[in-house]
């Protein structure tokens, strides 16, 4: 009697196990069918990018497809992915198979390099620090600039509502913060205490701290929160294009030079055999057509000749400080000092 119940016990457990196994294996078997198709020929290229480049790459991909078709006769598909720059880098490290990454910060691509997917010297692979286009941080204000916001100093005044994403999660927000820091450093002649005080005041004026640049733009433009949005120049122009009569751009006299870099993900292209096309894809960003598309989408072309064509759009005279300036000492240093847990940002924002 006892043995039969035990036997039945086992049979029941076995059927439960079988159900669980089936639940796990069924989706896995799907994988078996879907993968070889993608592997068969590298006619597909995946570009993992960050939030504000959606419109740029939509146009650029069409241009590149045409260029590639003329050159090789082959049709290719380009799969785009957009999101917060840091989050996108994380996804690539965790296995999102990008052939190329086009992110907001060298720091994020370096993180992928550290994980062993991209070679350490990646930033020398393409011209201008592998940044085919640059951008800077400007103020987007409501039409007529009712609060008369002209310089960074105006943003820390009482009663000004500032919208910026969170520097802890958003690449763009770090540039906002550092541009403000650079201005204050010049204004207070390097007095660290005064700089901290100013940054603290500025961030206490922040009404909504979204996780990404696009979220902040929506908060300011769509939901009507705040008096000023700290934004990428290209995001600001895009908002103006959408709502011509509601906003204007104020370029402060000093801002920061953002160099969003690009890289081929070595581990992925070597596995897929897509290195040639991935390299061609990024190279073409530096062509006259690629540069003009960048300019049209309100990124500053890295080629000065093409940039000059857009002199009417961009304030090319604004003083731009780079992240490699001794004030910041490069991304690694700036990141550790300002944005890691327990860094300066944490201290001023909780205060």
């Amino acid at each position, binding site marked *: 009697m006892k043995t039969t119940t035990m036997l*039945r*016990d086992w049979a*029941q*457990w076995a*059927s*439960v196990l*079988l*159900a*669980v196994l*089936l*639940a*796990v294996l*069924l*989706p*896995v078997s*799907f*994988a*078996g069918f*879907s*993968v*070889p198709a993608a*592997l068969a020929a590298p006619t597909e290229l*995946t570009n*993992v990018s960050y*939030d504000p480049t*959606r*419109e740029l790459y939509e146009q650029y991909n069409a241009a590149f497809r045409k260029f590639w078709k003329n050159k090789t006769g082959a049709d290719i598909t380009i*799969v*785009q*992915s*957009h*999101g917060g720059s840091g989050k996108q880098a994380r*996804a690539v*490290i*965790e*296995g*999102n*198979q990008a052939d190329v990454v086009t992110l907001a910060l060298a720091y994020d691509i370096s993180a992928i390099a550290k994980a062993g997917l991209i070679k350490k010297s990646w930033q020398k692979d393409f011209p201008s620090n592998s940044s085919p286009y640059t951008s800077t941080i400007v103020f987007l204000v409501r039409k007529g600039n009712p609060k008369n916001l002209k310089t960074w100093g105006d943003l820390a005044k009482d009663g000004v509502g500032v919208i910026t994403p969170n520097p802890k999660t958003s690449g763009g927000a770090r540039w906002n913060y550092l541009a403000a820091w650079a201005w204050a450093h010049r204004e207070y002649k390097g007095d660290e205490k005064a700089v901290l005080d100013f940054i603290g005041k500025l961030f206490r004026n922040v009404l909504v701290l979204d996780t990404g640049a*696009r*979220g902040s733009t*929506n908060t300011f433009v*769509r939901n009507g929160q705040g008096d000023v949005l700290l934004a990428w120049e290209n995001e600001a122009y*895009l908002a103006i294009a*959408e709502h011509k009569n509601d906003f204007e751009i104020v370029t402060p006299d000093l801002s920061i030079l953002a160099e969003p870099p690009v890289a081929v993900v070595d581990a992925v292209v070597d596995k897929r055999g897509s290195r040639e096309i991935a390299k061609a894809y990024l190279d073409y960003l530096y062509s006259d057509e690629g540069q003009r598309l960048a300019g049209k989408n309100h990124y500053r072309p890295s080629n000065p000749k093409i940039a000059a064509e857009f002199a009417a759009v961009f304030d090319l005279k604004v003083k731009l400080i780079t992240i490699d300036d001794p004030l910041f000492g490069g991304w690694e240093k700036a990141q550790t000092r300002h944005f890691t847990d327990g860094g300066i940002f944490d201290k001023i924002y909780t205060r």
Partner: protein
Amino acid sequence: MRKEVWIPCLLIAVSVLFVGVMLVLPLVVVLTEAFSSGLNAFLRAVTDPYTIKAMRLTLTATVAAVLINTLFGLTAAWAVTRFSFRGKGILSTLIDIPFAVSPVIAGLVFILIFGRISPLHPFLDALDIKIVFAEPGIILATVFVTFPFVARELIPMLEARGTDEEQAAALMGAGFVTIFRRVTFPHIRWALLYSVILCAARAIGEFGAVSVVSGHLRGKTNTLPLHVEILYSEYQFTAAFAVSAILAAAAVLILTARNIVEHLAHKEDDFNVR
């Protein structure tokens, strides 16, 4: 005495107001926004190749979730209510995990198990099996969040029925298949259908877990809810709301199906009693 008239009136007013603000108003907003740029803009958004691909993926994930969870739910409910075995309590508790765990965490767990940093990765890579940041990951995440629906619906049902009828059938010599087909299944079929509908509703709308494992590859790993977010982020508000309208329509259809099932089940119960 007269005062008490006010109580139901007040309760009804509060409920109607709440339902109006929380449910009807958003639905109206979605529909007006969806058609705010005219019918053509709506149709263009709905027939966009990326929208269609997202629709297909959502459908695949929903069908897979429903099939797998029906199978699992039936097995588990049968096992838990019809037999006693060691660990039964644990099993029936474990079924509820997806209700208790945040979907985001579920997604992250799948990334840790199947992602590049997982110890499993060299093995999966050698076999060229992609799970996270690909379709299987989406299916897996959807199955996970909809996992308890069928079992949770069937277990109380089977428990209330007791095992008398099955035992009688067994004594009369019926086998497992016959008992299930002729005795158990007729009792639970409405509950089963009902739970399948709920499971499908949840699968179609799932955002959190899927968002984490998706990688947001446009046209490849975007489900309808993820596609709505992308369109919204791209300033394509009309398109975003048009795709939302598809989801809303699916929800309305599902609710209708649910009510029909409920109605039919009641009718049958009445008939049985008579």
